[in-house]
């Protein structure tokens, strides 16, 4: 028999947004349960910080969370939900259960955007946030050479982090033009440092070559990465390295909100001033409403928690603070817009769908997602198109199809316990 539990407010995601939401919603005396698929709370930026007493922002928020009565369930992945019955389906390593709610807060964060280029499937080519997450969970990089490439402030935050852990970062290859970034009035060391909380940013910049209009066009190596082929204008060189950390910005995780019927706009979940979505009982906070860094996630989380708990006046008092964090977010997006040359990166033999090993030459002549799926199984693997879907949107302008449950691959036992997901077994 499947187990069912209930909480007045359920929060999905235990990053800064979800934690702030849970803390504020608990102030009303309501019963709050937080679910996250990671082994511990913290989300992306505070990964591995839970038990550290570093005296920074993170530890202050963790302290508040520890002392608030909200229940935390880690290692729990939301795979389906029914907005009519207000029930979510949850899978943990041990079991499948359902959780009912009055109000739902979705704080599902964002993931990294990757672009395919020759050699990007070689061992030790990783995402920028991906490698950073591994270092945060114990990977030593002391003395390792790490090329950091792609776009956006995360490159700087990550490079600073790698250096702090003893790595050598010979180059930080930023694809955007200097003019574009400077033109938006972004003072790199000041604003980006603040936004992305990279304390040792200056150090990173001083001892690495941070170059604009520069990108990695190939990764080379026999069984694993040996060097990255970097281009800036007409100049091309090979940079020897142990790891290549490459990412082209962040994209909101909107699959679960879409499945729950929340309206989206330009790839982010649409919310009103109280962070309420188009579904009256569902709220959304943090990166899934638009990429803007940790301060935006925290303040949106607080507003969401208060609003969901019915404390609208308290929520309203935080609006001015939120406005500031959003302004900068808008600017970021345009300053780091992707250059068209990046569409030329994949060669015919370059893999685009890493789950099914579908190559660019096969996909390029196709005219829709549907035919790509039917003819090549592109996007049909376990990541469910989370990686190749956004790639094909950029390369070919294909928009992802509607979201179907389960939003993550689930175990057979879980699927058979849910009538709607059982259907997915047949298709």
């Amino acid at each position, binding site marked *: 028999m499947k187990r069912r539990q209930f909480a007045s407010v359920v929060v999905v995601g235990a990053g800064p947004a979800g934690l702030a939401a849970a803390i504020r919603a608990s102030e009303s005396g309501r019963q709050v349960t937080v679910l996250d*698929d990671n082994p511990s709370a913290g989300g992306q930026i505070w990964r*591995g910080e839970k038990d550290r007493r570093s005296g920074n922002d993170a530890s202050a928020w963790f302290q508040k969370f520890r002392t608030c009565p909200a229940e935390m369930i880690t290692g729990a992945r939301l795979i389906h939900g029914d907005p009519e019955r207000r029930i979510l389906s949850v899978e943990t390593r041990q079991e499948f259960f359902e959780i009912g709610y009055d109000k739902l807060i979705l704080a599902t964060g964002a993931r990294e955007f990757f672009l395919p280029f020759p050699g990007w499937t070689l061992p030790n080519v990783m*995402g920028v946030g991906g490698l950073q997450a591994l270092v945060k969970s*114990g*990977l030593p990089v002391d003395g390792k050479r790490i090329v950091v490439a792609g776009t956006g402030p995360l490159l700087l935050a990550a490079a600073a982090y790698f250096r702090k852990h003893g790595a050598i970062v010979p180059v930080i290859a930023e694809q955007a033009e200097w003019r574009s970034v400077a033109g938006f009035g972004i003072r790199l060391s000041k604003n980006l440092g603040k936004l992305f909380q990279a304390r040792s940013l200056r150090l990173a910049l001083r001892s690495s070559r941070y170059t604009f209009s520069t990108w990695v066009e190939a990764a080379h190596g026999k069984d*694993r990465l040996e060097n990255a082929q970097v281009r800036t204008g007409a100049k091309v060189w090979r940079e020897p390295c142990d790891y290549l950390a490459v990412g082209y910005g962040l994209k909101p995780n909107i699959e679960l909100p879409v499945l729950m019927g929340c309206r989206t706009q330009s790839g982010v979940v649409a919310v009103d001033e109280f962070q309420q979505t188009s579904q009256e009982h569902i709220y959304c906070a943090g990166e899934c409403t638009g990429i803007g860094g940790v301060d935006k996630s925290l303040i949106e989380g607080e507003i969401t928690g208060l609003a969901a708990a019915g404390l609208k006046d308290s929520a309203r008092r935080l609006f001015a603070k939120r406005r500031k964090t959003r302004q900068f977010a808008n600017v970021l997006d345009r300053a780091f817009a992707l250059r068209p040359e990046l569409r030329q990166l994949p060669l015919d033999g370059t893999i685009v769908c890493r789950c099914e*090993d579908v190559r660019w030459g096969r996909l390029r002549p196709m005219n829709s997602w549907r035919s790509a799926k039917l003819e090549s199984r592109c996007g049909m693997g376990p990541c469910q198109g989370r*990686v190749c879907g956004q790639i094909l949107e950029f390369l070919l302008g294909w928009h992802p199809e509607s979201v179907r449950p389960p939003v993550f*691959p689930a175990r057979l036992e879980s699927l058979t316990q849910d009538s709607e997901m059982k259907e997915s077994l047949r298709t």
Partner: protein
Amino acid sequence: MRSMPEIITFSINGSPVRVSGGTSVATAILISGETAFRRSVSGEPRTPLCGMGVCFECRVTINGLQHCLSCQTVCQDGMEVQTG
């Protein structure tokens, strides 16, 4: 990296490994020098890409259970991890 002094002992492909508490299985595999977490459909060796439970490149077998995401699993004493 972490302040926890505890040491965890488990195995990767039958060989014993020791890591400090809190280390993820993905990290432990990289430390061991293994470069094929899994083999792709066409036989390529793969290592983690996203590090956060999205890409499914870090799938390994843990205690006989296939397709576990090593980036979202913390090492535990006595665990048996199989790659490839």
